[in-house]
């Protein structure tokens, strides 16, 4: 079976690499720098790529390794596994049950790195749990758990719930919905 030269194929994966990079960096300039570094690294290591295997997964692995090694150097950005940013957004699904894209993206950006990448890989880009686990260098169960924690955090942040007709109009309503009493002031 003939396979295309991976050198010719990289260009086809650029949109997906940019999307993955953007979901990790949450900044378009940083995302494009990350993709650029990834392409250069991938190119010089192409002899290590096994032709016929999943080039996208291989490129994504390099991309995320580049991202995390850069992050270790800069030593910023603490992950937020408990979703401390949560519940600041009030977003109702529109008629067909879809959320406003912007609200969704804002909420997504608040997830910890490992949940964002798990969700992008298995939820959006169609990686199997196995491929995603291999790309991230963790067990399959870890990917499943991260993806599901991410989904739950999103649901919580976006107030997706049964009684969707609610209007978050005033402080009292918000307090009731959040399940807390109003603090006396």
């Amino acid at each position, binding site marked *: 079976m003939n396979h295309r030269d991976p*050198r010719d194929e*990289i*260009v086809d994966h*650029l*949109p*997906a690499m*940019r*999307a993955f990079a*953007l*979901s990790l960096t949450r900044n378009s300039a940083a995302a*494009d720098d990350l*993709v*650029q570094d990834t*392409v*250069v690294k991938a*190119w010089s290591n192409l002899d290590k790529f096994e032709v016929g295997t999943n080039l996208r997964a291989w490129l994504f692995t390099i991309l995320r390794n580049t991202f995390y090694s850069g992050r270790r150097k800069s030593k910023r950005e603490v992950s937020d596994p408990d979703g401390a940013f949560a519940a600041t957004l009030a977003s109702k699904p529109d008629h067909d*049950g*879809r*959320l406003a*894209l912007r609200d*969704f*993206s804002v909420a*997504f950006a608040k997830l910890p790195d490992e949940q964002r990448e798990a*969700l*992008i890989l298995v*939820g*959006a*880009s169609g990686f199997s749990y196995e491929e995603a686990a291999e790309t991230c260098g963790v067990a399959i*169960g870890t990917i*499943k*758990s991260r*993806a*599901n*924690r991410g*989904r*739950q955090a*999103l*649901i*919580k942040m976006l107030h*997706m*719930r*049964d009684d969707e007709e609610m209007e978050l109009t005033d402080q009292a309503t918000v307090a009731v919905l959040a399940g807390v009493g109003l603090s006396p002031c």
Partner: protein
Amino acid sequence: MNRTTTESDAGYENADPERTEYVDANLRRAYNEMLQEEVPDRFTDLLRQLREQDNAQ
């Protein structure tokens, strides 16, 4: 419709398929939006440069 959130559900065994699909549909939509973006010229330029370097060797 049953999308009641369970706070303690950190594992994947109890994941609600309906909720999973609801979130994933929005994810795919956001992701596809990103995929539609045109790839800047810097990347095609970069690939051309890399190829020229290879050929020069």
